[in-house]
């Protein structure tokens, strides 16, 4: 949301971004998806107040308790319990912290790096551009998950290492987008005008060009956040990410694999949470893209 206030500072009238966001708000499906995403954010922020139980409290009498609508279930544990008798709903609520935190931080850090490098590469060109583009090419040569897995293997598991492993490659994507946009914006009249009036490079890059190229960056960030959330869940599923007993959706799915035969709910619900959040992000990004693309405007 800082994005929004920044750009409206620059332009007096509602900026392109604000107008686009209003257009976006017209699509019902997009609004629903945004609400779902915010809903998960609230779950993540207020987990201790929302979750009915302590996510790490074990009770072997509740071992593999089924969801409440199945015989033997208990409404106090609506989605049932896992193999250690921990409440699955509470663990899903706490697990949203990991997904939302990793998703948001990786995207924020990576997008900031991407904007800085992309702006410099596109604006200055020459040697700066070729160095940055080379690094981008090299990082793009690694399939994403393998790169993250290898880094996690070398650094060891843990939240901080997940952020490093994902940001390491993620910044390349906004960088390429920004660079491409800057290359076409550099020749625009308003940039020429700012140059002629003696504005500094920094001013032109941050105050003139950046606000005008934010739309595609926002679209890409939303869709990338969906990817990052799946990547974190995949790492945790493989046992390379968040370590027990901290609840994370990926490791919860992994925990339930062994009991799949008799207790399907242990793996199914955390996976469903990933699917719903990622789906909502993907729909939101599609809505943003449609709103930002002049082709779809009335």
């Amino acid at each position: 949301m800082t994005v929004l206030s920044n750009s409206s500072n620059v332009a007096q009238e509602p900026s392109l971004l604000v107008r686009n966001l209003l257009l976006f708000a017209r699509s019902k499906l997009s609004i629903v998806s945004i609400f779902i995403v915010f809903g998960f954010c609230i779950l993540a922020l207020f987990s201790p107040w929302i979750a009915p139980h302590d996510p790490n409290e074990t009770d072997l009498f509740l071992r593999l308790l089924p969801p409440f609508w199945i015989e033997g279930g208990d409404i106090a544990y609506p989605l049932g319990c896992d193999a250690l008798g921990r409440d699955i709903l509470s663990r899903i609520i706490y697990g949203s912290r990991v997904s939302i935190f990793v998703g948001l931080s990786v995207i924020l850090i990576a997008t900031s790096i991407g904007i800085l490098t992309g702006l410099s590469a596109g604006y200055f060109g020459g040697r700066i551009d070729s160095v940055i583009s080379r690094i981008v090419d090299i990082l793009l040569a690694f399939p994403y998950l393998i790169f993250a897995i290898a880094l996690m293997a070398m650094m060891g598991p843990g939240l901080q290492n997940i952020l490093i492993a994902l940001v390491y490659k993620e910044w390349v994507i906004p960088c390429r987008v920004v660079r491409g946009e800057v290359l076409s914006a550099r020749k625009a009249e308003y940039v020429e005008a700012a140059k002629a009036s003696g504005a500094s490079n920094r001013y032109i890059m941050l105050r003139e060009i950046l606000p005008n190229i934010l739309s595609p960056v926002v679209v890409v960030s939303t869709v990338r956040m969906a990817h990052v959330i799946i990547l974190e869940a995949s790492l945790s599923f493989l046992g390379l990410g968040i370590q027990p007993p901290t609840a994370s959706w990926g490791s919860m799915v992994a925990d339930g694999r062994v009991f799949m035969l008799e207790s399907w709910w242990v793996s199914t619900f955390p996976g469903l949470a990933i699917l719903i959040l990622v789906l909502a992000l993907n729909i939101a990004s599609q809505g943003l893209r449609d709103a930002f693309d002049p082709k779809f405007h009335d």
Partner: protein
Amino acid sequence: MSFGKLFGRLIQLFPVLLGVGIIVFFMTELTPGDPVEIMLGDSHVTEEQEIALRHDMGLDLPVHERFVKFLTNTATGNFGLSYFHRRPVADVIAERLPATIELSLVALIFALITSIPLGVLAAIKKNTLLDRVATVGSLFGVSMPGFWFGILLLLLFAVKLQWLPVSGRISYDIEVPIVTGFLLIDTLLDGNWTGFKDAFKHIFLPAVTLGLPMAAILTRVTRTSMLEVINQDYITFAEAKGLRKRSIIFKHALKNALIPTITVAAIETGSLLGGNMIVETVFGWPGLGRLVVESIFIRNYPLVQAAVLFYAVTYVLLNFVADILYTKMNPRVEL
């Protein structure tokens, strides 16, 4: 495209590959723990033996010499010894590779044969129920966490319905003489129809899981490009000539609409490589992906290093092929 230009593009790959080598080398340099200690584990050896081993592995050299050695070794396909298997890493990888390639190819075929008809139909019947189903389906396809989808498929088809096996490549009681390493082909070469069916049943669920995101992306690409082509002048002209709609679509439109699909398919084949670590783990598929995951937990770093290098090089080459394909099919695009 002339041979010279092709060669020029090929040369451009070298700095990228060198960069890949540097990153992979330093990745393992940063690893905590001493490889010699990991390799020796609990076995009792004298200090001299340890020093000898360190020397054999070239670990007593300074960093830059080790890097040069790493590059020359890599170029000659010598990736060192797998700590765990005590055999050359290259051999261990080569052994697991056919299973992974077979799985990726079947996943690719699955993605192509589902996405192309679906994308074309969705475009022809735009804004109908079928189009909606295709759109929603592809959204689900890209949003589905692969490891979870695989588990659900296992739960339904292998555990509840018991139509398909839970894991592995082929049942233990079926013997197949290995020729190509691809069990689907080897069973056919052997004339073993039961074996082929068995291998197919084993590969079906993993391939569907692996191919799903790709199918979703390709459906979208095919739909978009088909819509674009249908609105072109030459299609309107063919319609005006009174050609039958079906013949227009199959003879004229499809050929051009598939160009982006094929290009994207070539690029996405690279991401199948990433997905197979997850899918092979879920389905107990004895391929390279699972080997890498297992190797991480036993700290068998030379193997992880070599596999990452292998994946990256394959990925670069696939993207190169995608580039070439795109240029070949689009005469307007110049390299």
